């Protein structure tokens, strides 16, 4: 009887050990390239691309990677970008012509990392309907734009005479043919004076980048495959106005 009990206990213990042995779920993390490029869609522009990487928690970080092969492909051109140590970024050796509503591809190759392929489609042209140059604006006014095709998101700055920038963001109503951006309420804390309103019509990748919350979110892949980061494009329009605080 005692032997049976002992055997039963041994069997139960063995069963518990057997079913509770688990294979660890984690796999070793492999670092990836981290790309940062916000492409402004204007003629004759020196594109800037910062190439960096993700770092394991136990490895020290560097500011940038300077020996990657960075290739920009446009509708009619393929250019290899060069690393400029002065600003720790890759640039085109000459100004490039960026056209609206065209797709641009960035390829970043670096030994020991997966190759990054990033794409962005530049937003279409747009105009500022209201205000016009040196119009007077109040907090209750609305900025009106024509719509930029392929731009789900608008971003901009009020820049005062001291070059101080007050940012704003806006996601337009999809049904409206125009974009109507209310003057941000926090401009009530600004002062009366001349301002430069700069408005960026941003592509989907830019919107994704702007929505990313570094303290909450984990992986930013705005237009990027094979790595992390952002490759986005935008068009800019600007107007000078006089803002009156009521």
């Amino acid at each position, binding site marked *: 009887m005692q032997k049976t009990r002992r055997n039963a206990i041994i069997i139960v213990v063995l069963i518990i050990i057997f079913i509770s042995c688990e294979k660890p779920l984690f796999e070793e993390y492999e670092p990836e390239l981290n790309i*940062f490029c916000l492409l402004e869609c204007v003629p004759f522009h020196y594109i800037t691309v910062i190439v960096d990487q993700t770092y394991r928690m136990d490895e020290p970080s560097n500011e940038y990677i300077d020996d990657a092969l960075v290739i920009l492909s446009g509708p009619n051109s393929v250019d290899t970008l060069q690393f400029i140590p002065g600003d720790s970024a890759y640039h085109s050796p000459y100004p490039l012509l960026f056209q609206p509503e065209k797709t641009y591809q960035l390829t970043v190759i670096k030994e020991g990392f997966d190759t990054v392929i990033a794409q962005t489609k530049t937003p279409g042209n747009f105009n500022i309907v209201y205000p016009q140059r040196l119009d007077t604006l109040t907090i209750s006014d609305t900025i009106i734009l024509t719509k930029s095709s392929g731009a789900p998101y608008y971003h901009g700055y009020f820049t005062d005479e001291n070059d101080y920038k007050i940012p704003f963001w806006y996601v337009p109503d999809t049904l409206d043919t125009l974009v109507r951006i209310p003057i941000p309420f926090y401009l009530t804390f600004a002062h009366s004076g001349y301002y430069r309103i700069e408005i960026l019509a941003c592509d989907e990748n830019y919107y994704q980048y702007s929505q990313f919350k570094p303290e909450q979110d984990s992986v930013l892949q705005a237009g990027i495959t094979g790595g992390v980061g952002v490759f986005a494009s935008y068009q800019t329009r600007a107007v000078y106005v006089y803002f009156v605080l009521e």
Partner: protein
Amino acid sequence: MIFISLLLLAYDYGSVSGFVTDASNGEKLAYANVYLENTDMGSATNDKGYYIIHNITPDTYSIIFSYIGYESAKMGISIKENHNTVINIEMNPSLIELEEIKVSAERTRFEQEVEVSHITFTPREIKSVPGLFENDLIKTLQLMPGVVAMHDLSNKLYVRGGSPDENLVLLDGITIYNPSTHLFGLFSTFNPDAVSNAELYAGGFPAMYGDRLSSVLAVTTKEGNSKKYTGEASIGLITSKLMIEGPIPKGSFLISGRRTYFDALVWAYSEIKNDTLSLPYYFYDGIAKINFNPSPENRFTIAGIAGSDIISFEESFTNETEEKVDLKWGNRGISLRWRRVFSPQFYGEILGAWSNFLTHFQYEDFSDSTNNLHIYEEIIDYTGKCDFNYFLNDRHTLACGIDAKQLEIGYNLDVVEQNIIDQEQKTHLFTAYVQDKWSLIPNILSVQAGLRTLYDNTYKRSCLNPRIGIKYHVKPNTALNLAWGKYNQFLVTINSQESYFSIFDFWRLVDSTHNIPSSYHLIAGLEQWFDNNTRLTIEPYYKKYYDLLVPKENEMFFSTPSESLKVANGYSTGLDIFFKKSFENSFGWISYSLCFTKRKEGEHYYSPRYDRRHNLNIVFGFTIPEYIPLFKNGTLNLRWYFATGLPYAEDLARYRYRYYDSIEQNWDYEWVVIHGPRDAHRLPLSHRLDFHLEKDMRIFGLKGSWYIDVMNIYNHDNIAFYTLDYDEDPPKKIAYSLLPIPIPSFGINLRF
């Protein structure tokens, strides 16, 4: 037809019934053994101390009452045809244990009840477990199989893979919505001095309980001494406690309270030293109970609980108060219960209860009222309930009941003197249940089948919860159990139950946008008694969850379920082993839990943060032998705990997120952390040894005792979480344990 046949069979016999109480204080004695000498007829008292023996052939008998720790009582009775003889007995506590075989309440329960995963605690057991600064009921429950604590200081119950909000917690019938809120979640609401017993159903609970998915904790406070005025006082490191009980005409009362006093000591010190030092925090709680017995058949009980944690401070820059901060939270509740024995076979209880948990935060800026902030969150529960038990015969015990509940949940936020949020949820829940405990083959095979229905009046929804339990006594000392049941829960919490540190839960009604969460329990069990004081239970179980509502990441409070919750399914399965043995001067138990808990969102399974695979507790207590001079006849209780690590999301990597800093007016970056899967890594093993040493003494002629508790004697670092210091490159990983040194505490108890 079966009932009628059984009724006919009962004809021409007599019966005996009554209550069994403690002669020293009038407390009921649950699961005392009652039998007729030289016959095989017997019974046991139920949890109300009531017993009945049916189908007795008219004759004269000797009836014997026995209960461990009490002198057996014997008296002659005459049983008459079709007549019930009432014998209410008071049993005297025994000063010397006699060499007779007595059966413990647990053993009697094993013979009488069809239940699985059930454990009863006595105050002695609660007080014998080493505690952090003082004993705590919830901490004691964490030593039971199937119950997991998330860390060394945790005072929440994760039962068989269920989260704390899936536990129904009752105190004298009052629903307690946040049982562990004192000292930021370190202590429970239950003052151990006032507790008579605590019952935990870790799963498969019967039809009389519902509206929770995992478990039931039913705490009953003491009745109050109906014989004489007595009391207990204690001074501990954190709190002082006082409990007074005594008789009133045709009844008894009990009142107990405790309060932290560090704030008072700091205040006194400041007054003496003319200092501005202050500790703006304290907590208190109180439990009161009055029993009134106008006749043996009727008992009225009023029970109440009130407690609060309070943080309050003012900032005075001149002689005038500039700012004031008040934060308080706490449980309150009251219940009125009428128990009536309508006939020897039929008794019932009617209960009315009110329960409230309130969180209130107020910030007042006296120089600029636009900064004022006012937040409150409240749940109010009005319950009306009737429970009836009918001892049809020695084969059938019927139970049924109805329950009507009004729930009100309010949450309010005022900012800059404007009401931003003012929302209220209100509903009426109606419940009815019926249950039969049927002894199919006496002493061998019993079945307990029940059905519980729930109806939500606001959203016009109903649920049907069938429950069944089967107990098969393979041998007199061995039983196999099987239980299955369905459970629903109409209330959910919008705060994460996976948080390491949370003081209280924010409850919401499940609104019409979601299905009502449900679970199914399937439990098989083996219960073996090696002798009257040695018990082994082995229970494998499987629990399936549907339509669980878990918080979305990064959602703020004061939201509705539709805004802040997402749907998950899941399961938990495992094995609980419990071995308990009592000797003459010692006791101990070993509890082991193996548990696999998974939640499923979409098609993805993951382990929640409380998925602890192995959990082992060994508790051993003994009376110190006489040859150890200083501590002779004292008691030493040891607890060793061993557990495998909880899952967590390891920070795998980091990278730069570049952005335009509109404050600094330049481009900058911050580090983004790439987290691993939420359950891919596990914290290291945890283990620690605690002890509780207690020794009787006399102070000013009063009986008392002193005690010393030490947690984590051998100073093992049980890692609770990690942080990363980004000031270093690479970031430095820092491990935190919550008991970084052995934590001693001590105190004095007095009885008068």
